[in-house]
């Protein structure tokens, strides 16, 4: 090796002696390059050896010194998670809070005899054999100086027992953590949403620095939509610790976390609970809104689920049960359930007819119990009532008693273009603007819609079906309520909203209500008066209204409209979901719908109810609406 090196060093000398050569000498050039390369390699090797020498110095000569310093190491940076913002109802009742959850943990390295201490803890009644078994599984392959979970969700009594005996249980400790808690559980699940544990997929899209100390993230509903506002900003502190990892004294430096902001909702928990109770035994949804500003007062989708289960980690069994249930408790029907509006749209259609002078307040239609397209008698469109509603059905009777042939005829003469254009103004086929995300906008069928989605032309027969709110037409319960709010509020339709104020520096910043983009122009209000009068009669026994029984003896005056409809599938959902829905659609035919508002003068509340498989709207949906309105006006439950 040395001789080899020497030869090249001598070559190095010779190359340096050659000067002013006149021609390119390949041999000589090669010699220069080779000798320089070898020189460089020797140089590199020496420097690499110096790194090795440095390591030797640190790791062998000074090892004990650093070992001691490592054991006493002592200043560590801790991250502090911000407290998640709280969610209140409109009267300041807590809907989502943060509760302390205690867990018993052990640092194996600090325990002299692990089995001993586990037996002691067991004899205190804090853990059972299954906890110890799971603990031992967790112990494998985990670093011994890290805290390992022995039992989660300790109750207050356990914590007391532990603190009384803690001094004898060195290495074991109780950790307190704030965890989201929803006091009203499944009754409010679909209105508030829920947080869940952060998983690998979340990690890829969140700000990893800000979520460093956070364990949960808003996954559904409001909790997801307002995640940025609710979460807050991470804090940190440097602390000195002893060998055991215990913090000594005060933090050396500290940046406190900034808690998430609190939200005030439009929801009235009293009304929400009443609506939830009224829906007991039904699959379906109730939406109550204030037509004067778009506030959602109650939002129920039944059955619900307990969001608290998801916070602490739901068991696979229970999750499978939720997913597998034909009742689809995880499905937010108010936001994403698409139902044919059925007869509930008749007042709106009547108004369009009056405005366009296709009908008048006095004009009548003959109803023998069926209707056919003039000059084309191949298909018969039936009324729901055998024998029909008589020879002279006017617009009042047609709405109050929900006469189909009146609206077959009206829709047929009106044409799909006029229907679609006007129903867009009522908010059909469009977002209600609700601040929740993942809302479905349903279908308001039109020529254009059919060409794009069905690749065929529009048929007149489809216009006839559209006249009674069936066929392709569908909408969510939120949209149904929103459309009626236009009538209740004399034309000013607001975007729906759940959050009315956000707390900043202990000051509530109100959010202003926003008018919807498209509005109905009721003009002088003459025709609006007609349909409101008709809707009022729907709830009256004296006018033989379809909801007369449900509203017998009410202490307030209300107006409404019943509907009997079929559950349909949405056009833009994926196939699997579609299949699921078809199964349901077959299983449960007639769904009942009711929309209404009260009081009749200066309405304060609009309600939409859908009960799947509820039969006639007057028989199941209207009574639910009655219970909710009673709760609103009388405070009874």
């Amino acid at each position, binding site marked *: 090796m040395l001789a080899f090196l020497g030869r090249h060093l001598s070559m190095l000398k010779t190359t340096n002696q050659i000067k002013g050569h006149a021609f390119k000498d390949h041999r000589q050039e090669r010699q220069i390059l080779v000798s320089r390369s070898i020189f460089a390699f020797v140089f590199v090797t020496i420097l690499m050896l110096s790194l090795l020498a440095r*390591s030797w110095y640190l*790791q062998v000569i000074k090892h004990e010194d650093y070992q001691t310093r490592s054991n006493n190491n002592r200043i560590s940076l801790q991250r502090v998670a911000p407290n998640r913002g709280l969610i209140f109802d409109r009267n300041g009742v807590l809907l989502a809070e943060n509760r302390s959850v205690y867990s018993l943990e052990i640092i194996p390295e600090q325990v002299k005899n692990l089995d001993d201490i586990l037996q002691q803890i067991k004899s205190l009644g804090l853990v059972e054999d299954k906890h110890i078994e799971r603990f031992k599984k967790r112990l494998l392959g985990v670093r011994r100086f890290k805290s390992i979970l022995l039992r989660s969700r300790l109750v207050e009594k356990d914590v007391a027992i532990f603190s009384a005996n803690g001094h004898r249980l060195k290495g074991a400790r109780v950790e307190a953590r704030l965890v989201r808690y929803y006091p009203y559980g499944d009754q409010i699940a679909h209105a508030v949403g829920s947080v869940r544990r952060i998983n690998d997929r979340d990690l890829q899209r969140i700000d990893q620095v800000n979520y460093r100390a956070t364990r949960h993230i808003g996954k559904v509903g409001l909790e997801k939509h307002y995640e940025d506002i609710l979460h807050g900003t991470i804090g940190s502190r440097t602390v000195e610790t002893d060998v055991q990892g215990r913090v000594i004294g005060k933090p050396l430096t500290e940046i406190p976390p900034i808690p998430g902001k609190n939200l005030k909702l439009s929801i009235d928990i009293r009304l929400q609970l009443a609506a939830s109770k009224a829906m007991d035994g039904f699959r379906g949804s109730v939406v109550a809104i204030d037509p004067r500003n778009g506030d959602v007062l109650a939002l129920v989708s039944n059955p619900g689920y307990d969001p608290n289960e998801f916070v602490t980690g739901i068991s696979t069994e229970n999750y499978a049960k939720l997913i597998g249930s034909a009742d689809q408790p995880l499905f937010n029907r108010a936001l994403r359930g698409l139902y044919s509006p059925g007869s509930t749209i008749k007042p709106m259609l009547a108004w369009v007819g009056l405005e366009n002078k296709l009908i008048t307040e006095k004009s009548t239609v003959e109803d023998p119990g069926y209707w056919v397209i003039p000059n084309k008698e191949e298909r018969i469109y039936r009324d729901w009532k055998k024998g029909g509603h008589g020879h002279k059905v006017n617009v009042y009777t047609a709405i109050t008693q929900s006469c189909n042939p009146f609206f077959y005829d009206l829709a047929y003469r009106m044409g799909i273009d006029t229907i679609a254009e006007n129903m867009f103004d009522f908010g059909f086929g469009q977002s209600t603007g609700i601040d929740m995300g993942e809302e479905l906008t349903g279908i308001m069928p039109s020529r254009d819609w059919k060409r794009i989605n069905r690749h065929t032309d529009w048929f007149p027969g489809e216009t006839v079906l559209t006249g009674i709110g069936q066929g392709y037409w569908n909408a969510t319960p939120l949209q149904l309520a929103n459309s009626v709010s236009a009538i209740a509020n004399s034309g000013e339709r607001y975007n729906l909203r759940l959050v009315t104020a956000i707390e900043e520096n202990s000051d509530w910043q109100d959010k202003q209500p926003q008018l919807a983009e498209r509005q109905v122009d009721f003009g002088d209000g003459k025709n609006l008066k007609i349909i409101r009068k008709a809707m009022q009669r729907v709830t009256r026994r004296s006018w033989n209204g379809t909801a007369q029984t449900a509203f017998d003896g009410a202490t307030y005056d209300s107006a409404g409209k019943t509907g009997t409809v079929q559950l349909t599938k949405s056009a833009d959902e994926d196939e699997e979901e579609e299949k699921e829905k078809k199964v349901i659609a077959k299983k449960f035919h007639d769904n009942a719908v009711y929309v209404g508002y009260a009081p009749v003068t200066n309405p304060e509340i609009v309600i939409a109810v859908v009960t799947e498989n509820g039969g006639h709207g007057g028989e199941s949906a209207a009574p639910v609406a009655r219970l909710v309105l009673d709760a609103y006006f009388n405070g009874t439950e």
Partner: protein
Amino acid sequence: MAFVDRDISDKGGKSLAQKLHIDLPLLAGVLVLMGFGLLILYSASGQSSLQLNRQIIRLAIAFVTMLFVAWIPPRIYKKWTPLIYAIGILLLVAVLVVGDEGKGARRWLDLGFFRFQPSEIMKLGIPMMIAWYFSERKLPPNFRELLVAGIVIAVPTYLILIEPDLGTSILIASSGAFAIFLAGIRWRILLSFVSVAIVYAPLHWLFVMQAYQKQRVLTFLNPEQDRLGSGYHIIQSQIAIGSGGMDGKGWLQGTQSQLEFLPERNTDFIFAVLGEEFGFYGVLLLISLYLWIIGRGFFIAIKAQETYTRLLAGAITLTFFVYVFVNIGMVTGILPVVGLPLPLVSYGGTSMVTLMASFGILMSIQTHKKLLPG
């Protein structure tokens, strides 16, 4: 020497490695290093499978790039060298005008479908250009030629310096300087440059350096002075390495690393995790792996058939060495803190693809050879 000569002229039939233009000793070194690096990264990232997966994807992309680069013969690179250099200069100018700004520096160019740092091109562009320039001239170079080479290096170095990106500009300037050194610059000239630099250094300190840069140097000289500030990195990494001892604390068992005393432990300071968990033996293994790759690089340079390939191979190898030396030197506390990753081990790093491309060039040089008489 331990390297096996695999000149294709020695053999009759072509093996798979020859068909793919792979240099087996270099490949073996790179693969073992990657594997060892992933092992360390898994621990340093706090056992994050997410980080591990991403790193594997990056390594895979870089590996494919290496194979592709190796497959192209060196004469093509030589032919395109001036163009590559010119495009590199243009992109460096472009980045100053329309580049994406981040953390107060313009380093990224967004082409719509992907983002990259034009300075990466220059990491190869400069040694290629110097090698190309000298390959057509008599060696050792005369003074005029040295001046031209100096300008070839200075222009891109300056463009990168004002982005600003001190680390990379030092790195590319030295890659060019290595090519000049290998081309046989006279010792007399070299020594006079070094002495000028020594005289200049204090002037630079007084008039040019920014306060934060001075602080880095001061902290390096006396880390205990600033225990919770920038000295924290240096102290904690030395405690980690030193407490590892001869055998180390064991994989995933490093208290310094796992209890998060060590900052940037998965990126620039990953060497400290190795030192703590695998001890001196681990350090010995890692340095041996690097030395094996560097040694093979020089072997390829010596065996190369023409000036261009010899200079290029040698300069690439020396630049790789600088990466390794600066990073380990910084983490063990014999060099000031400069933001350079440990090649093929640190998490992330936009430079991984460039690095593997340079190994591809080495392989290309070794495996595309003409049969020469004698």
